[in-house]
């Protein structure tokens, strides 16, 4: 039976499910350039275990054009793309945020 008195457990359960599904669907939340020089700009989509934690647990480097598309608000599915490299190492990842 659901336990209404366990907010930490609830959040943990929800994050576990959301992380697994977000990674599967490739749903990023935000992106940022890692270089202020536009001509040399590289973009990185990083995955975090928790929105409040420190270092990313993995990342994907992206070309500028793709990063532009992925940085649009409301993106929920990034499928049909064969990434050259994906070094995310946790199905617990949930938040994606700018990385420098």
């Amino acid at each position, binding site marked *: 039976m659901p336990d209404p008195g366990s907010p930490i457990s*609830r959040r943990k359960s*929800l994050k576990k499910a959301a992380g697994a599904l977000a990674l*599967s669907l490739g749903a990023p939340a935000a992106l940022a350039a890692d270089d202020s020089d536009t001509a040399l700009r590289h973009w990185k989509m990083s995955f975090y275990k928790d929105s409040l934690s420190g270092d990313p647990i993995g990342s994907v480097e992206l070309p500028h054009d793709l990063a532009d*598309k992925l940085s649009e608000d409301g993106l929920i599915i990034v499928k*049909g793309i064969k*990434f050259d490299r994906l070094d995310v*190492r946790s199905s617990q990842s949930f938040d994606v945020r700018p990385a420098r």
Partner: protein
Amino acid sequence: MHLLPVVHDRGTAFAYDCHGCGRCCRHKAIRVSPYEVARLAEVLATTTSDVLGRWVDLDTNTLHQRDGGWCAFYDGGCSVHPGRPLACRFYPLGWNAKTDGTEAILQLSPHPESEGVYGTGGTVGAYLTSQETAPYERASWRYSVVLQRLRAALGADGPDPGEPPPIFDLDAALAEAGGPIPDGVEARVDRHLALLHEWLDAAGAPRIEALPGQDKEKQGATA
């Protein structure tokens, strides 16, 4: 891999003739969704548990690669072609979709030695129809509704629903839930999604109607 500065829609003139060189089957991270795992299991005449245990890196949700970076299912050609993942069906295109139902079709740059031949004799929509992407797209939309509900639930208080049903292992999820297990991938996905939504209801997650793109007939997609 990088992108050409090209963003298509489904009506854009496009054609691609794959000559089976296999270069797009090497050194690629192919992420799989619950639906794609189920389709692979169907082709391999096994369970989703078996597919996940033998061919999927559970940390990244990507298909295993063999020595040399070849896809685990590449054997001089795709050994699971009828159940190949969406990324393989879209290639050399990519697909992004947003919660408002809009989408972008991106053209990826080819492998420098690819033997694939591009043309303009068709449309993006016709190409994707030939690759039978529609059921995979529908499934992506349907699972994205679950993700939207999860995100909404994380932003609000509610009851603890306990452990979620297995997200990737449909067979395990349905066995865990008990009751008859329907035949066919689509029926089992229906049941899996129902279980996930029941769990979200128990978590007090706000209901979200179908995303605008979920049932939208895409131009050319069903031609």
